[in-house]
């Protein structure tokens, strides 16, 4: 199996190297057969990397511990669902996923554009396969997922328990899809600049891929936030962690690009800006991959002990150099076709929106790399925390939401005061009324949140107004019923109205972020069973009793779960019961030293308990005081090891007997049951984090709306040109048959 995977990977690498050469030769010589051959190399790479990926997945699903990567990232007790996902929890597997996704997206784009942009395509193929060569080279020569162990162990180390969350099954593939998809517009931009075809066609050919990259990266970021909120036990959804930031950077510049290309398509403006933006976005996507792998910045998401930093630095350096050289060399053809007619125009708003996005990206970039910058200058590694980010991100986010309301309703070229009055009156009223209504509820004490609510109400007002007017216009033209007019309106203008849905979703999301950040109540308390604590908003929690259970998988202890049964009351009335817990996973390889204690020395994860709602979430996590169990654990360890030594003294080979091993397992199981029973009966005080957070659900709801809007935008429109051509040929056939 491993040899098959290794062979397929090597073949894929060779095919990618050939494809780069064939593409460049075909482009430079103008010989189409070489370009077609390079295109086929892309398809072949997709097939080969699919084969390699399948081999790795099969190894994980079969728990084939002869594969080093399977042994270190999975175990027989890992649930099947997570075994499949464990492949990309490793450095090697995630690099293979990167290569596989890149090859699949590259195949799709070269297939869809096979009759278009023939002069650009050879260079775009060379760039895409250049990336594949880099990642294939890493997999073949540096970190192979198909390395094997001399002797296959009976059990693996298991998947990091923090990754055992449904989001983790799809979060990394989503992020990697986003990263790899940005390579497509990057490659076509390079090709377009090489052949000096910097009109809007390369944008048209790859716009859907840029949208796809934005969409997948956005979904990945959202899933990561949800995972952080539900799994990490600190109660937040965004921590400005370097790896989180790394995924946000290309998303921000990519969002700016998706807005500004509309100005180029419509007015022939911002060509240099657009080319620079997409080149920067492609580079930032690789930078994001580099940050996860290099370990240069501390992050809970990073692969530690990685040796891939230098190759990535070389690649990023080459991408920056190529980008700068191309933009400078092509500045003559990148000149704008029109000037800005007025500051009161949609193109001006797009420009402002781009500056805000790039400003945000700069803030995130500076904050992320500040530890390295400070270390280089002062010798001390200093990090910037959330308050620093808030200082800059909050005003920029406010400007962004405001612009997302202005942009859709302002006219291209020049807006007249009369038009402005007509389009902004009701949305402004919505914003002002929202602010006024919220003041008596104490929101004025948090001016940033109040401003965000007002701006979001304004933005939502403009979008609702746009839909109402669009439906009216449609009905005036076609006399359709309102629901049909609404659907047809979106169907016939997917890009525009899908974009409006995205703006709506972002406004809802920002309302959730503002409310949950400004009005959150958090308490860390230590409680004994029977004790209560007040949180906020009239909520009181009572620690009713301790809970303990043992989760098993394949007749083996997967983890010990210690928790609490909590009674939740509001204004003196019981409103529900919640059960936060903490799962303790065994430390692998410590069976002989600490057969019972190892269950408390491995990884531990919080199982958050939450009562969620549209208005607020009540969130709680528990950290049981397991140090109080240590004396009992030591006694049990000593008893088990002592008994074991006596048995081995009598017969050194006794442990080879499966019945004895089974009996030992039962003994340890019984000791653990005693331990959990005594914890549940007389639990020591536990530490609780209790949070009442308003409107967090709006973040997920807004995110879902953004996803819906993204799907509307990406959904393929009927190929009208092809339909017309087909209809034309059908008519010709009919004519010819008539003549006969």
């Amino acid at each position: 199996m491993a040899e098959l995977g290794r062979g397929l990977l090597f073949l894929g690498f060779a095919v990618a190297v050939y494809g780069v050469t064939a593409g460049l030769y075909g482009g430079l010589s103008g010989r189409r057969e070489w370009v077609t051959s390079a295109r086929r190399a892309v398809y072949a790479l997709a097939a080969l990397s699919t084969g390699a990926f399948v081999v790795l997945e099969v190894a994980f699903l079969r728990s084939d511990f002869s594969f080093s990567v399977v042994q270190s990232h999975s175990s027989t007790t890992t649930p099947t669902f997570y075994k499949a996902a464990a492949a990309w929890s490793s450095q090697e597997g995630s690099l293979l996923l990167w290569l596989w996704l890149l090859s699949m997206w590259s195949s799709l784009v070269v297939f869809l554009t096979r009759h278009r942009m023939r002069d650009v395509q050879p260079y775009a193929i060379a760039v895409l396969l250049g990336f594949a060569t880099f990642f294939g080279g890493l997999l073949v020569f540096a970190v192979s997922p198909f390395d094997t162990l001399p002797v296959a162990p009976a059990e693996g180390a298991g998947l990091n328990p923090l990754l055992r969350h449904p989001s983790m099954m799809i979060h990394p593939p989503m992020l990697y899809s986003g990263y790899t998809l940005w390579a497509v517009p990057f490659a076509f931009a390079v090709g377009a600049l090489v052949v000096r075809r910097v009109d809007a066609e390369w944008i048209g050919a790859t716009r859907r891929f840029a949208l796809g990259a934005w969409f997948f990266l956005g979904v990945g970021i959202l899933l990561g936030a949800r995972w952080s909120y539900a799994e990490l036990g600190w109660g937040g959804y965004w921590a400005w962690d370097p790896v989180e930031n790394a995924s946000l950077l290309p998303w921000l510049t990519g969002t700016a690009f998706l807005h500004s290309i509309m100005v180029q398509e419509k007015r022939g403006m911002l060509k240099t800006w657009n080319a620079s933006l997409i080149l920067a976005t492609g580079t930032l996507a690789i930078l994001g991959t580099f940050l996860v792998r290099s370990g240069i910045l501390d992050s809970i998401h990073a692969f530690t002990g990685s040796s891939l930093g230098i190759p990535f630095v070389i690649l990023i350096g080459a991408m920056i150099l190529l980008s700068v050289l191309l933009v400078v060399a092509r500045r003559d053809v990148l000149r704008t076709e029109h000037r800005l007619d007025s500051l009161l125009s949609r193109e001006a708003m797009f420009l402002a929106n781009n500056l805000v996005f790039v400003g945000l990206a700069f803030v995130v970039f500076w904050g992320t790399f500040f530890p390295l910058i400070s270390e280089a200058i002062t010798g001390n590694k200093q990090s910037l925390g959330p308050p620093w980010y808030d200082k800059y991100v909050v005003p920029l986010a406010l400007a962004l939401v405001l612009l997302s309301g202005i942009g859709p309703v302002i006219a291209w070229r020049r807006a007249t005061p009369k038009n402005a009055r007509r389009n902004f009156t009701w949305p402004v009223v919505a914003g002002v009324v929202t602010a006024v209504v919220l003041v008596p509820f104490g929101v004025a004490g948090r001016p940033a949140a109040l401003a965000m609510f007002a701006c979001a109400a304004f933005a939502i007002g403009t979008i609702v107004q746009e839909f109402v007017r669009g439906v009216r216009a449609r009905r005036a033209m076609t006399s359709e019923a309102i629901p049909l007019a609404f659907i047809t309106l979106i169907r016939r203008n997917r890009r525009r109205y899908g974009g409006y849905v995205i703006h709506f979703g972002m406004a809802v999301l920002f309302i959730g972020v503002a409310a949950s950040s400004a009005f959150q109540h958090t308490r860390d308390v230590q409680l004994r069973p029977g004790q209560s604590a007040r949180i906020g908003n009239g909520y009181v929690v009572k620690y009713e009793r301790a809970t303990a259970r043992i989760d098993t998988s394949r007749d083996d202890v997967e983890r010990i779960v210690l928790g609490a049964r909590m009674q939740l009351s509001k204004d003196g009335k019981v409103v529900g019961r919640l059960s936060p817990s903490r799962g303790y996973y065994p430390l692998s390889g410590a069976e002989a030293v600490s057969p019972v204690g190892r269950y408390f020395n491995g990884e531990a994860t919080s199982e958050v308990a939450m009562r969620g709602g549209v208005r607020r979430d009540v969130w709680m996590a528990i950290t049981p005081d397991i140090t109080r169990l240590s004396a009992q654990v030591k006694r049990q360890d000593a008893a088990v090891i002592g008994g074991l030594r006596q048995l081995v003294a009598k017969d050194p080979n006794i442990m080879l007997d499966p019945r004895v091993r089974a009996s030992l397992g039962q003994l340890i199981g019984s000791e653990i049951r005693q331990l959990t029973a005594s914890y549940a009966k007389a639990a020591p005080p536990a530490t609780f984090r209790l949070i009442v957070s308003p409107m967090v659900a709006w973040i997920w709801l807004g995110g879902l709306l953004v996803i819906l809007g993204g799907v509307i935008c990406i959904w393929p429109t009927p190929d009208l040109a092809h339909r017309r051509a087909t209809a034309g040929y059908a008519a010709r056939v009919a004519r010819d048959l008539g003549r006969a």
Partner: protein
Amino acid sequence: MDVVAVGLVLAAAVAAGYAIASPLRGRHAEADDAAYVAQLEDLEAAKEARYREIREAEMDFRTGKLSEPDWKAIDRQLRAEAVELLRRLDALGAGERAADAPDGRADDRAAGGE
């Protein structure tokens, strides 16, 4: 050594090699008139962009973002640009060139493409 694995890798190598090399075998296609194709594609893209702008300007007018005189002025200008583009497309002989190759597929077939 796993003989089956080696056999599968060899089979994959042969299949990939055949697929990649087949466009290079047989008759060599003549080099495309790349400049012609590029010009044609540029004009087609510009034409589609003008059509899209005409439709969007009408929508902007109907949803109140443009006054009637502004819309008419923009519409006139865009239509004039579209007419000019159609003239240039006709002058380029796009119709005749495309007649033998619907959607431009003939060129690819000649190059051994899909």
